[in-house]
């Protein structure tokens, strides 16, 4: 394909984002302001799924991390979460429970739980035991240790998990139309209505949306990191860290490994 034709496809995709046009089969108008509705539905179902996943996974992960039980649960959760293809999960829901907003939201919730749970757990477990002992020495007890020491130190990792799940959910929500939810995946799944330009346009918007969510949650993660935990990123700081102890284990990457659709 020549570069001009290639650019032409993208140009046409931008055109369908900006202006309404008749669908391929004719009869209905697609594109233009319809994108706002699709984006709205996409964000709505993603937010619902993420909120439910947070409500379930955060308390459980923090609690198990605090009492130091459930190592096995945390690690197998992470592994199983990775191994089940999200497309198979959605298909499973369609076949067994049926279609609709609630079912897709439930499938996305299941997808979002493992990274949040695992990171909440690991976040609590990685808190230096000496720091906790120091807190005890200062007279803090159970809840005080959680609130004053463990939680603040676990927050960056916890939010890392929420960030992974948020991007995963936004990405996977694109499969929604398979189960009857008309979100940004609609022009992708129903390309015979929207045409290849509409499909390309949807792909562009979904990609930008995912990157936007990633950046927003990265900012949020930075915002909740306690000042004392922020890594000194100057050259001197890096040198100090390298001398002080071996670099931290690739935990972040081990927990980043959720599949992104």
């Amino acid at each position: 394909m020549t570069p001009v034709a290639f650019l032409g496809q993208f140009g046409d995709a931008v055109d369908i984002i900006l202006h309404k046009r008749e669908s391929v089969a004719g009869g209905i108008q697609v594109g233009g302001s319809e994108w706002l509705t699709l984006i709205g539905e996409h964000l709505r179902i993603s937010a619902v799924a993420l909120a439910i996943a947070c409500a379930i996974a955060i308390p459980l992960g923090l609690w198990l991390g605090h009492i130091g039980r459930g190592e096995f649960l945390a690690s197998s959760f992470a592994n199983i979460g990775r191994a089940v293809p999200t497309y198979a999960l959605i298909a499973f829901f369609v076949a067994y429970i049926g279609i609709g907003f609630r079912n897709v939201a439930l499938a996305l919730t299941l997808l979002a739980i493992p990274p949040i749970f695992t990171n909440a757990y690991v976040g609590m477990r990685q808190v230096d035991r000496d720091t906790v002992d120091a807190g005890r020495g200062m007279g803090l007890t159970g809840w005080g240790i959680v609130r004053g020491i463990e939680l603040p130190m676990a927050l960056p990792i916890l939010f890392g998990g929420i960030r992974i799940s948020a991007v995963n959910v936004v990405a996977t929500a694109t499969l929604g139309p398979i189960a009857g939810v008309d979100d940004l995946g609609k022009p992708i799944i129903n390309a015979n209505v929207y045409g290849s330009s509409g499909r390309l346009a949807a792909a562009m918007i979904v990609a930008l949306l995912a990157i936007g969510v990633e950046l927003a949650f990265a900012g949020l993660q930075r915002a909740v990191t306690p000042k004392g935990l922020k890594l000194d990123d100057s050259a001197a700081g890096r040198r100090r860290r390298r001398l002080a102890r071996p670099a931290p284990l690739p935990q972040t990457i081990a927990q980043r490994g959720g599949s992104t659709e």
Partner: protein
Amino acid sequence: MRPLVLAVVQLHDRTRNTCVNQNGFCPKWISDHIGDYLSPLWRHVELVVLSVAIGFALAFGLALLARRWQWLGAPISAVSGVLYTIPSLAAFFLLLPLTGFGLVTAVIVLVSYTLLILFRNITVGLQNVPGEVLDAARGMGLTSRELLWRVELPLAMPEIIAGLRIATTTTVGLAALAFFAGAGGLGEKINADITFKSNVVVAGLLCVLLAAVLDLMLVGLQRLAMPWRRAARA
């Protein structure tokens, strides 16, 4: 791309078997039709192995570059991070005008997903080699190249294999979407009749099974690649 009703009729004769008729979970149908899943499964394996292998070669080269020129690490991480964030479904269709339907498009997307995981794990593995070990090796007169192949890489092996394991299981899941790019795989089988429970369960379980088998093979590889670990434990 909803399954056509016509295709459903072809897939199973609805007049005879009531279980199939009700889109149920039918062991009999599964044992009769399991053979139909072998060629999509094989295609799935091809997609995963090809993508992870190419991704590993690329990530390994990039990690060596970043080892030689440290300032390269941050931009490589940033670019692979963006590639990782773009949803694969979107990536397939973004590439379509350029590379067309088929295996190439799917493999490009799947490779781009493995890069971040593999690059970071290889880099972190190399960085985690203790400074004293490097000093000792240099003191024994090892050149920079010998240092890499005989000291740093063997010591970085646990992180490298961990990265390969994550990349492989993730790719098995993502390859289930490769049919959107016209590359087949088990996802195409799921898509052929998404309301038929037997079909969805068999194809989905084969995905999970494939991920588990490949993961076990990598664990085996790790044991083979690091015989000194076994010796230490014994």
